[in-house]
């Protein structure tokens, strides 16, 4: 019985590999000669591929749940004492399992695309399926060769070390990796359609319209994955921050930046037919950067806290990246003239111009982050010297770019197409600017002296005010029902505005919680007290709690205000059997106005060393991230317009002036 499960998983992986090979062949052939392939064949192949991926994943989960240590993957990453939740998430805690998850998500997206390909006459669609098949061949190939999780051990151990302690401490491990994968893998779909369009030498908005849903889904999930990653880092890791410019974090941010540029630029192409070459380049770059990011994460070419151990997956991913980069861009270079737009934005002072500037800024941002991440590798490869590039560099580069982006975000959505006159812009933005100036004046009078905070507050408040004004002005009436009808009628625009509001909120919180934070490192004897952020902080005692798979030692830190106990925080250290390093967890006291963050630096029964932080407005960062995701979902919920030739403008379109 013990070998039936691994055999089933192996079968699933092989089935997936075979099906994806066949899909690649059939799809590309169908694109060349639609009559050579039957539609049913394509459908069946896609289902077989999905079935194989599901079988592999199920087998892995069943093996984990039944403590089947004959499987190499289970022996390396699972322990009998893990709880049910963390047993399930162990499926993607290790390299092999995470690739199975990737293949599963890819198969799912392929099946969704296949549903939209109704006949082999749809050459764009069949070509896209072929390209998706090629990508799936690579990943199934990895699963069956280099990173095989279904290897059987001759002498299975009685118990394993369990997943990394950091992956056993918090619920977030169930959400953050799957969301990231749903995001990364989702961008394979527009990539496949773009490649298909290039192969067909057919430009146009067709491929963009068909991938609109996949774009938004992927982007929303990737945003969610990044925000959750920051939240996890903040709540769980205990170093007091949410973003460390770690190479693995950067590897997730870079594709997101380029994907955001792509989403904006796609709108312009659908509406005005411009920036087509940009869109091809952006979608190719998004996919290539996803692969590069995966390579950097899994190959230990960069030193990072997140690094997986070395494996044969590194060279394979590098080879695949070279193929995508070289092949994709070469194809684009060769077929480029057929797909380039014949018209360009007339002036920068227009919505097309604003999106063009936005493209440039986001691409520049991605370039800077990529440069900072790989520069040490390049320097060491060429000169042998070792340099480091860390937070100071990235912060300095991000700051002006972020301001420029906020500015573009504040002005762009209210700029009309084709050409904007100064008068029109002024009439749309004058009251919002007044609101922004009022906000900064208020802040200055309240004692805020940081230029960064004031500038961000100005831009964010102006942007929010402009959005509100736009809603009120464009709604058919003043009643809430009319506003609701407006917002539901043009979901892509208003979803985008909601996302912009979220970004503005995130920017404000980053500026405020950065510039106005307070920090202290204190050593307290048992029973001793000190002052922090207006509270009296006492170290009462330290307790030990044994758990099923861990020993938790915590410190009771009591906060008093005016003599009354207002809060007891319990930051803790968890020691797991079979793992050398104990995991510290901070205690975060969240209120709408500020977070008080307590992390243990050192703990003994009679003395504790604490790192205390007070971050104003911190919880709004996660709210802002949620708003961005909500904006994406809102835009998704609009009906897709079918590509049936020219269409009439939708009702309630944003009027030219107000």
């Amino acid at each position, binding site marked *: 019985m013990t070998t039936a499960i691994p055999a089933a998983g192996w079968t699933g992986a092989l089935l997936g590999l075979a099906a994806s090979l066949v899909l690649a062949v059939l799809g590309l052939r169908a694109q060349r000669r639609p009559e050579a392939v039957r539609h049913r064949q394509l459908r069946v192949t896609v289902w077989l591929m999905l079935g194989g991926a599901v079988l592999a994943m199920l087998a892995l989960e069943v093996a984990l749940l039944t403590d089947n240590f004959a499987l190499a993957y289970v022996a390396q990453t699972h322990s009998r004492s893990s709880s049910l939740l963390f047993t399930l998430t162990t499926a993607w805690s290790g390299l092999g399992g995470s690739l199975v998850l990737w293949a599963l998500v890819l198969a799912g997206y392929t099946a969704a695309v296949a549903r939209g390909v109704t006949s082999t006459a749809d050459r764009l669609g069949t070509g896209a399926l072929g390209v998706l098949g090629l990508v799936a061949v690579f990943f199934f190939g990895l699963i069956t060769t280099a990173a095989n999780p279904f290897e059987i051990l001759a002498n299975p151990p009685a118990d394993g070390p369990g997943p990394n302690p950091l992956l056993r401490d918090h619920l977030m491990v169930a959400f953050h990796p799957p969301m990231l994968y749903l995001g990364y893998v989702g961008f394979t779909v527009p990539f496949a359609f773009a490649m298909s369009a290039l192969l067909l030498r057919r430009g146009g908005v067709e491929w963009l319209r068909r991938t609109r849903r996949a774009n938004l889904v992927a982007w929303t999930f990737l945003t969610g994955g990044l925000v959750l990653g920051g939240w996890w880092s903040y709540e769980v890791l205990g170093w007091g921050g949410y973003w460390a410019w770690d190479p693995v974090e950067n590897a997730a941010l870079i594709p997101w930046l380029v994907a955001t540029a792509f989403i904006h630029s796609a709108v312009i192409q659908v509406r005005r037919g411009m920036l087509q070459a940009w869109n091809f380049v952006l979608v190719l770059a998004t996919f290539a950067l996803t692969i590069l990011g995966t*390579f950097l994460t899994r*190959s*230990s*070419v*960069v*030193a990072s806290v997140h690094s997986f151990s*070395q494996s044969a997956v*590194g*060279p394979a991913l*590098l*080879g695949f*990246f*070279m*193929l995508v*980069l*070289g*092949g994709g*861009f*070469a*194809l684009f*270079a*060769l077929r*480029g*003239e057929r797909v380039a737009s014949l018209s360009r934005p007339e002036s920068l002072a227009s919505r097309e111009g604003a999106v063009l500037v936005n493209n440039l800024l986001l691409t520049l941002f991605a370039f800077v982050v990529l440069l900072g991440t790989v520069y040490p*590798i*390049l320097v*060491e*490869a*060429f000169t042998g010297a*070792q340099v480091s590039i860390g937070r100071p560099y990235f912060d300095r580069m991000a700051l002006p770019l972020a301001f420029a982006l906020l500015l573009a975000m504040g002005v762009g959505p209210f700029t009309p197409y084709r050409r904007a006159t100064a008068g029109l812009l002024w009439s749309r933005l004058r009251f919002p600017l007044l609101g922004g100036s009022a906000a900064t004046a208020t802040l200055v009078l309240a004692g805020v002296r940081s230029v960064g905070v004031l500038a961000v507050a100005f831009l964010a408040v102006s942007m929010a005010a402009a959005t509100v004004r736009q809603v009120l002005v464009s709604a058919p009436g003043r009643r809430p029902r009319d506003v609701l009808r407006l917002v539901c009628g043009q979901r892509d625009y208003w979803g985008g505005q909601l996302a912009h509001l979220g970004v503005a909120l995130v920017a404000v919180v980053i500026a405020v919680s950065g510039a106005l934070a307070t920090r202290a490192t204190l050593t307290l004897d048992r029973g001793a007290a000190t002052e922090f952020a207006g509270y009296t902080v006492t170290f009462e005692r330290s307790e030990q709690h044994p758990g099923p798979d861990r020993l938790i030692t915590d410190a009771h830190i009591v906060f008093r205000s005016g003599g009354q106990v207002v809060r007891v925080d319990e930051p803790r*250290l968890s*020691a797991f059997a079979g793992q*050398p*390093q*104990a995991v510290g967890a901070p205690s975060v006291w969240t209120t709408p106005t500020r977070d008080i963050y307590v992390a243990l630096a050192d703990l003994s029964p009679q003395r504790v060393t604490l790192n205390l932080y007070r971050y104003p407005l911190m919880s709004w960062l996660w709210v802002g991230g949620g708003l961005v995701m909500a904006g994406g979902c809102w835009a998704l919920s609009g009906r897709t317009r079918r590509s049936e030739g020219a269409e009439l403008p939708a009702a309630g379109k944003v009027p030219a002036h107000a």
Partner: protein
Amino acid sequence: MTIDGGTVLRSGRGRRRQVRRWGALAMVALAIGIGAVFGARLGIDPTLVESPLIGQQAPSREVPYLERPGSMSLAELRGQVVVVNFWASWCIPCREEHPALVSAAGDYRDAGVSFVGVNYQDGRNSAIGFLDELGRGEGYRYVTDPGSRLALDFGVFGVPETFVLDRTGRIVAKITGASNYALLSRVLDAVLAGQQPRSEVIGPIQPSPAR
């Protein structure tokens, strides 16, 4: 006129096609270049950093002895070849290299080589227990490093790291990771003969203890 326009148009398109062909080639070359650069770094541990202290004078900080009162400084040992080994009781590779260090200490004592073992970020009792269990070398000086200041002076990333000083007190070699007798003797023979030995990366270092 039509012929002229046609010729212009055709040659224009032909030139554009050539530009695009070159563009495609450039992209492929770029991809191969990037692959080569990253590929060359595969398999190399990114956490290993070379020491800039080779050729520099060793620090002369006073450090207290582990097991007896008083302190010493590396400056006192000038005139001898000195092997400075950073170790800790919680360090697993240190256990592997300890017998080699003890033997080398005994064998090279008459040749004018002194061994100094610096206990790194450790508890005194655990350190003494380690030595009780695995043995002490003859003439081997065991010191502690309160506040890790000597480790900072030597640019230590983790343990075990071994530095070899020549008779004038200059650092001439660094061994990162657990050393072995063959390597130690090769390096010491080279230094005693006045040659420049090679620094070696033998294995992994443990940067911090298990809690």
